[in-house]
């Protein structure tokens, strides 16, 4: 039974004001870069937007609309990036993102989960990672002489990306070691489960998350560090829904910014002046706020009893990545029109179900990045990396922030 009924108030409150589709006035710039919703920008129909998904959810709840392959493709083509939710909540008390999650849950429970997503979920079930690769390969590309502190209560969570691109994990390790952070790596970690939650596979997600949370508890872990935005958002926003989380989650950019501020991480300059622009990953930014459960009654004129905590995107991790980049001598940081809580999504979440939409969305972001005059777009999410570094010539190149930072650590010998 899906959660759709829990969001009846939200569905019945929408008046099609359009705030879910357009950038907030605080960031307005002009005719271009004014949209925030990739599916709306691409397809144009009102149904292809946060508002439209609410309308579909309502008709599903009222049993007036049946699932079809086309509808499932749209619902999963939506990147669930949360831009609509932040914009809606700038003026309303509605749970748009949660309703989209519930609609996806309904989609899965109705047997319409797109085939590509079903395959990935099966990979996770069988192997503990998205790619379906043998778990024993997970740490194969880490250095054999990697020294860890087996007694540390901090873990570097490597995530599924370690299978494809160990360079990011190696860079994170280098940052932590250079900063003198005690940490360990857990051989038994599994996929964080974000993929499953977003696909609407609630039970499988809960099982996956429960395994990791149990592992952290058993190993006495109190801090989880990750270089993956998806894992970060998952630990902060999805885990509290299904399991106890007696641990703190930090992104590598938060750790690095602290180390730089404390003078524990010294950096060398770029070979030549470099103008960069930073792309906020959804799961590190607006979707990374800690989830606070609420059960209660909505009385006349919107009074929530007991009082409800609202995640409006305000407390995402926006500044640490920027602090880190600005701390590297030679780097000039330029902002895109849509940044921080208003960032345009990279489109990665649509790659499996709607590759054309994904390419359009990424293309828009690269065009916006180039518009700033930057030579490269920097981010810190493996899925943003996939989306923003497609094959062929691009208007700007992509840099991984963790790897870029690690490459500019000044070793003691240099100092």
């Amino acid at each position, binding site marked *: 039974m899906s959660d759709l009924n829990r969001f009846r*108030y939200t569905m*019945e*409150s*929408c*008046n*099609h*004001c*359009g*705030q879910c*589709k*357009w*950038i*907030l*006035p*605080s*960031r*307005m710039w*002009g*005719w271009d870069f*004014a949209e925030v919703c990739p599916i709306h920008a691409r397809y*144009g*129909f*009102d*149904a*292809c*937007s946060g*508002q*439209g998904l*609410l*309308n*579909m959810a*309502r*008709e599903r709840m009222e049993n007036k*609309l*049946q699932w*079809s392959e*086309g*509808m499932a493709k*749209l619902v999963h083509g939506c990147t669930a990036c949360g831009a609509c939710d932040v*914009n809606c*909540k*700038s*003026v*309303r*008390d509605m749970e748009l993102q949660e309703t989209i999650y519930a609609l996806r849950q309904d989609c899965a429970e109705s047997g319409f989960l797109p085939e590509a997503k079903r395959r990935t979920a099966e990979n996770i079930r069988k192997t503990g990672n998205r790619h379906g690769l043998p778990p024993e390969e997970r740490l194969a590309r880490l250095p054999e002489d990697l020294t860890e502190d087996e007694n540390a209560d901090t873990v570097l969570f490597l995530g599924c990306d370690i299978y494809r691109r160990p360079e990011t994990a190696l860079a994170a390790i280098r940052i932590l070691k250079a900063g003198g952070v005690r940490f360990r790596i857990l051989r038994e970690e599994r996929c964080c489960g974000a993929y499953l939650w977003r696909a609407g596979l609630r039970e499988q997600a809960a099982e996956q998350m429960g395994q990791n949370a149990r592992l952290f508890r058993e190993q006495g872990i109190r801090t989880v560090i990750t270089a993956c935005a998806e894992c970060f958002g998952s630990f902060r926003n999805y885990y509290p829904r299904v399991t106890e989380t007696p641990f703190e989650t930090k992104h590598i950019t938060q750790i690095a910014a602290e180390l730089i501020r404390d003078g524990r991480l010294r950096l060398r300059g770029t070979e030549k002046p470099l103008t960069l622009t930073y792309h906020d990953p959804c799961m590190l930014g607006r979707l990374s706020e800690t989830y606070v459960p609420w059960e209660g009654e909505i009385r*006349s*004129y*919107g*009074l*929530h009893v007991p*009082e*409800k905590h*609202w995640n*409006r*995107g*305000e407390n995402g991790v*926006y500044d640490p990545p920027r602090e880190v980049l600005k701390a590297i001598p030679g780097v000039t940081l330029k902002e895109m029109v849509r940044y*921080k*809580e*208003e960032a345009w999504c990279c489109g990665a979440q649509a790659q499996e179900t709607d590759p054309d939409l994904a390419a359009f969305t990424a293309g828009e972001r690269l065009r916006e990045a180039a518009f700033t005059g930057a030579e490269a777009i920097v981010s810190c999410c493996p899925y943003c990396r996939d989306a923003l570094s497609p094959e062929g010539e691009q208007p700007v190149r992509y840099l991984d922030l963790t790897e870029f930072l690690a490459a500019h650590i000044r070793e003691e010998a240099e100092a």
Partner: protein
Amino acid sequence: MSLSEELYREFAAIVGEKNISREEYILAGNRAQTPEIPMAHKSADAILLPGSAEEVAQIVRLCNKHRIEYVGVVAGCIPTAYSTRENSIIMHFKRMNRILEINEEDRYAVIEPGVRHIQLYPEVRKRGLSYTAAAVGPGGSVLVNIACTGGDHHVQYGTSRPTRYLLGVEMVTPEGEILRTGSLQTGSGWFCPESPGPSLRSIVKGYAGNAGKLGIVTKIAVALDRCKGPAEIRTEGISPHHKVFMDSDCSRVYVFNYKDIQDVCRAMLALGEAEVCATVQKYFYLPLTLMMTDSANEFWKKWTGGYKEALSMPLVVHIAAHSLREREYEEKILFDVVRETGGERIPRELEKWWEEHMDYFMIVSRLQSVLRLGGSWLPQKAGAESVQHMCDVCESIGTYIHDFTDTGKIFDAPENYQIIPMEYSHFASNELLIMWDRTDPKAMSYVGELGAVSRATDAKRHFYSSSPGVAGKAGEATGRLYSNVHVWMGRIREAFDPFYQSGL
């Protein structure tokens, strides 16, 4: 009744396969019941995304041929943006979204229907220009606000109402012809709204904008004003806590509270006579409190904790000057006027909120927070006459509204009306905003009662305080006050839309 396969193919041939859909999940996005309207909307049989006036004209002709209702939609947040019967289509103007020209010398912009305020406003502002955006959110259509609806805005004191910013018009008539009015029809450009002879634009568009709904407006020229203020507005913060930073030498905001609307009236007239200040308005106190809070719960705490009294009759004033000296001059006059009329500045912490949001477009984007209370709402008394007349109308509200607010039939905010002077107080618009609990099954009957009492009061006291209805019961009730406009509108419609296919 759904469209036949053959007819659907004909529509698809006009707009292209990617720009038409009859999938139920796509139709769902344009038929959902919205909180302010108690009835469910009809579902269109298809939604089309035309790309040009020529495509619109072809669609209209096809609709006429097959007796299919067509409805034009951009944002979809007004009650007329829905199908009203079976056998209908919706034309959505997402693709017709170009700013075709911004003429800085003659000060006009030529736009298509899909251009939103969030797109045009910063573009003209970069050029030191502005226009009066109606009080809708950033996603509202500029063309719809200026050419097709009668919405007003809060900046009009120093300028005029949006409909007066309409210059040349290109539209597709109900018979499917492309019509160009004003200077356009003589090939003289976009800048003039009329040309010799009868005002075809006014006849076709009708007094009541979208309620007249004759054909589809496909391009307009919008008149632009010079803008006092920075080309780009500097902001800081993360939503929902953005702040605006204005040049403090040239921009100041003051909010005064009054006890008597007639004193507000005297202040408005005196400021207008002196031709000072950029914005002067008596604002709604319920939306004002909502805009200053982040959730319904926070609203309730502040509303019952002193805001209702502190903001009971607020006069909001924005001074936008070219220089420090000009600002100081206007301030001196303002303070003299306020002293003479008995206004008192509200507590600084409340006034500061306005200062930090004092770009009116940003204020308007916050206005949607009215809906945070989860109820339904209805603007009433949306009329325009002299400042004195509008103030008298609003004063009369107190003679009957307490029967509704004190008994819980509607939200307890009896003074929740606004008065916007325009053209330096040469005339004004007013609006009473009522809210009610949408979960109360009797709420609509209360609203009906209130509407009837309001209209009766207007008729008895000869008030011109409501936009006249152009058809049906609303036309019968108010049309006679306005030279039988409902009769004339009916005749115009018969003449221009013989098949009654444009949705109403």
